């Protein structure tokens, strides 16, 4: 039983279809990466899975349950967390308040959850009273991922977690993502830094014009000449 199974979905933002038969599968504990050119529909796949736009045809299954067009709130309740590509923190809230919002739908003591997130991102503990909007891009990305981890997700969806970060921070971020995977969390991420992302990925997909082009293990995709020439910049 796959954790997430996206089967041949079609849909868009009200006009013409942006997704024209996109498929993705994530198993438990896997890191799965979607790469592809700008405008291919990578972010759109993520949004479609999370219920932010209508899927017209095709199916999304989570742990064998049909969740096609489930609302975002229901996704969160099922244990799926999503970090959008942009504007992914609440700028006027403090770091800790951002994290607390991640667990809004859960009741009970938040402290153990906060501790867990601070264990993955120790820097956030030191800066928990800082306003998130005043932090650097890298720190904001940590806040965003921390917020998503607050529900103890089984599946974490990340849209370009390393966009705009320095090479050092990119390495650090990928390191954290592997730590998250080691906690037993499946990770589905979209990445522009395709080579590095595929290097830590169990499997990868190349998406172009809203449909799958290639699908293979990370190393195999990296070794594939056509993929390398067309999508990874040689």
């Amino acid at each position: 039983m796959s954790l997430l199974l996206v089967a041949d979905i079609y849909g868009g933002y009200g006009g013409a279809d942006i997704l024209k038969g996109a498929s993705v599968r994530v198993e438990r504990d896997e890191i799965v990466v979607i790469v592809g050119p700008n405008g291919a529909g990578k972010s759109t796949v993520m949004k479609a899975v999370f219920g932010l736009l209508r899927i017209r045809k095709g199916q999304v299954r989570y742990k064998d349950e049909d969740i096609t067009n489930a609302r975002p709130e229901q996704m969160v309740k099922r244990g799926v967390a999503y970090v959008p590509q942009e504007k992914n923190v609440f700028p006027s809230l403090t770091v800790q308040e951002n994290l607390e919002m991640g667990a809004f739908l859960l009741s009970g003591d938040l402290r153990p959850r906060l501790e867990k997130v601070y264990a993955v991102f120790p820097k956030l503990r030191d800066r928990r009273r800082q306003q998130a909007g005043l932090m650097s891009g890298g720190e904001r990305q940590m806040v965003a991922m921390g917020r998503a981890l607050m529900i103890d997700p089984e599946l974490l969806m990340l849209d370009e977690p390393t966009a705009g970060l320095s090479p050092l921070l990119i390495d650090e971020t990928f390191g954290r993502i592997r730590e998250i995977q080691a906690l037993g969390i499946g990770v589905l991420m979209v990445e522009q830094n395709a080579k590095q992302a595929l290097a830590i990925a169990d499997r990868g997909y190349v998406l172009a014009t809203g449909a799958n082009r290639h699908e293979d293990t990370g190393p195999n995709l990296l070794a594939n000449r056509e993929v390398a020439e067309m999508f990874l910049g040689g």
Partner: protein
Amino acid sequence: MDLLIDLIQLSIYGIVLGSILTLGAIGVSMIFGILRFAHFAHGDLMTIGAYVGLSFLVFTGAPVWWALPAGMVGAALTALLVDQAVYKHIRRTQPVILLISSFGMALVLRSVVQLVWGPNVYSYTGGIQRPWWFGDIAIVPNHVWILLAAVLIVAALHLFLTRTRMGKAMRAMSDNMDLALVTGIPAERVILITWILGGMLAAGAGVLLGMDSRLTPTMGWNILLPVFAAAILGGIGRPYGAIAGGMIIGLAMEISTLYLEPSYKPAVAFVIMVAVLIVRPQGIFKGTL
């Protein structure tokens, strides 16, 4: 010397007016932050609060300050009713449709006030209060109570926004609607709480305004422009900015009477509002406009 005394005296009036404007402006700002439209019926919500408070006093004979909680209950229920009956159904349309609807709601609420309480002028307490004199400066006891009540209401709101889960969720939603959605923050529940708080704050402003002068069916409508000026000056969508905005507008309106006819007070607020919109539309505290 006389000028200085006048200035101090007018500043006291300005702070009192400012604290009333602040309560209204915080509500307008919160509603804008979460529902993304300018709530034109806010002034008449204040009027409702003031009159419900009055009725409570008349029916129960309770001490005057009871008008505040009673008015708050009345205005909060009215706000909820209006939201569920009207605004809820047009939430996903353009903001301008909501704005026009709230303009219509303003007329409806005012008519209801006229219908229920008539066109007469009322006041919470009979007679004129004897001021306390500090040298040449007179302070009316009511002004002290008004300021005190406003400070307490704002402090309570601050605690709510910073200490409770729902308060934080309101700030989060006001910050970033889309992220709130994917975080699982239940938008409709937050919206209901926003109306309850907005109504309570409006009633606070209405009752205090009634204590400062008198109750008329147009009292809230007449003060709507300065309230919006305060919200915009503070940065609309930023409740804390509304405090600064309210105080500045209140002071400017009162101090302007040194040079202008008092009937120009709303014009002073209007000029400041237009100037802010031209020079710094995001207001002092970078609102979402």
